[in-house]
């Protein structure tokens, strides 16, 4: 499970890194969501970075795969930031959707809920909204269509360049 640490504005990435021992945290710094542990960051341009951090958590709660690192969930939802930059109505839908999610989640907001079951219970309440459907509908393509995640699931992708599987195990099952 991922917990989120909201850095104070101006807190440098270097400083965050120095703190050490914080594990797999997503940190918000300036306009970015940063994973100090895994050395990646996602700069937002239209959506608030807090919104992006919540989207990443929401994406994991919608399609939870414990063996898939946060980075791929972040890549999967970054299109919403691009879309929000082009379409103000879309931006409003996302920001309002996240605000509503936080409101329904109590004082600590959505990311403040410690257990996946608690967050899923909140998602269930908004399942029918266009906001949820936009996130889930986009995610089913943007998460599973990343070639980098395929090996995690044991899917090998294109095979033509390797000559197909005729000499690479199309019939190698042994346990039957």
């Amino acid at each position, binding site marked *: 499970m991922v917990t989120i640490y909201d850095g104070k504005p101006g807190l440098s990435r270097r400083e965050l890194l120095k703190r050490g021992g914080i594990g797999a945290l997503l940190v918000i710094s300036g306009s970015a969501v940063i994973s100090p542990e895994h050395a990646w960051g996602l700069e937002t341009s239209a959506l608030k970075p807090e919104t992006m951090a919540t989207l990443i958590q929401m994406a994991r709660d*919608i*399609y*939870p*795969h414990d*063996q898939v690192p946060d980075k791929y969930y972040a890549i999967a939802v970054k299109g919403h930031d691009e879309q929000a930059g082009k379409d103000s109505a879309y931006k409003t839908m996302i920001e309002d959707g996240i605000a509503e999610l936080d409101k329904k989640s109590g004082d600590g907001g959505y990311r403040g809920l410690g257990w996946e079951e608690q967050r*899923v219970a909140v998602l269930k309440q908004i399942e029918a909204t266009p906001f949820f459907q936009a996130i*889930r509908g986009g995610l*089913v*393509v943007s*998460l*599973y*269509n990343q070639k980098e995640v*395929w090996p995690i*699931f*044991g*899917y*090998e*992708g*294109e*095979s*033509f*360049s390797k*000559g*197909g*599987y*005729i000499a*690479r*195990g*199309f*019939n*190698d*099952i042994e*346990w*039957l």
Partner: protein
Amino acid sequence: MATAFDLNNDGVVVIIGSGAGGGTLGNELAQKGVDVVILEAGARHEYEDFINDEWDSFTQLAWKDKRTTSGDWRVAKDFPNLPAWIVKSVGGSTTHWAGASLRFQEHEFKALSTYGKVESATLLDWPITLAEMEPYYAKAEAKMGVTGTNDWPRLPGNNNFKVLKAGADKLGYKECHTGNMAINSVERDDRLSCQQTGFCFQGCKWGAKWSTLYTEIPKGEATGHLEVRPNAMAIKINHDASGKVTGVVYADKDGKLQEQKARIVAVAGNSIESPRLLLNSSSGKFPDGLANSSGQVGKNYMRHTTGSVYAIFDKPVHMYRGTTMAGIIRDEARHDPSRGFVGGYEFETLSLGLPFMAAFLDPGAWGRSFTTALDHYDHMAGLWIVGEDMPRAENRVTLHADMKDEHGMPIAEVHFDDHPNDTAMRNHAYKQASALYAAVGATRTFPTPPYPSTHNLGTNRMSEKAADGVVNKHGQSHDIKNLFVSDGSQFTTGAAENPTLTIVSLAIRQADYIAAQMSAKTI
């Protein structure tokens, strides 16, 4: 090589669509010296252009023009603007098809007589019999290189087949093998044999699977009698005062309207576009659309009773490796009403890559119940159910009341409700398939809902009497003698088998008929 015919050449046969029906008919006529223009809505992608990637390939090949849906089928909820997963490209859906090539059973040409009247179904006997079709089936199998016919060996079984076969044996099924596939098991017809690549649905990059794109079409072009015009979207069929059709208006690659004159027009745009075109061709003389005096154009839409079952095992399967559909169990294809439904169904191996598995396993689902299934993707086996569905008058393609395409033509609305017979058959198949996989040690099974339709049938059906259907036993419209239908929309009923072999066989037979009628100057 390829001839170009003048727009004003009114001696040509114009075929709309270059897939199993249109592409075959075009080549067959060209071989007889008949001049043919095929108007194909899609672009021409040769087989080396195909992409081993599900979404990228979908973008390259699929028919994505907007359609609407209604009815109680789940596709209407999950994919409201994508009722069918078919192709807009030269070669049509023969680029995408899996290659399963089965003859219909004798009784399936006599559905009404065999099953009796079924409530709220519009069953009818075909005006042709298996005996009449057999010589054409044989020609089609020879043309397409169907394994298990003409001394061509069957394909080797892949991992997914081996799981299916083990389960079939445990359940006592007798007829289980790697199918009759129009995929080369040996090099023939200047094409390679199957390399077990596993992307059959994305277009075979080896050209091992039969597709009109690289068989019928170049052979027809080589005669000098066939021109395939890509990016030519048929809009309307014109007719003269006597009611004979005279040409086809189409939007060219620049969106400009052109008219290709014609001596004969054959419609082969698949079962959604074909009725749409006939309905969109309405005129003062034919206010309900062409060939529609019966009111049957667009009705009796069938899509086969389908569904999939995927199962997870405690050990790896890698079902996606190798020929996607080379695996079949035929025992349930019989007509045996003691199972609680009429008609029968086939089990055929099927797999999807991870991206499409995520999209189609349980559309709309989310959360751990769903994701833990995908977590074991490489431990999955899968099969497809394909069975006879009941034709119904209300299951139909109509013109949308308000929505139009970029050429100003009303788009297609596709309505489908499952018949109780369809539901009973699907539930039987889910149960049998789950038992089959359980017998091999599955730890979890997934009765997966139907995908957007790949088999679209019946919307211009063949009938003995003009009042019951749109075309006669040669696919010639009852109303207009120089207007033909050459795709699966002419199917009177759907049978349990994948339709392509029958579409190709009907096209070969139709070419004989058209050429004879042209010689006799009756059309």
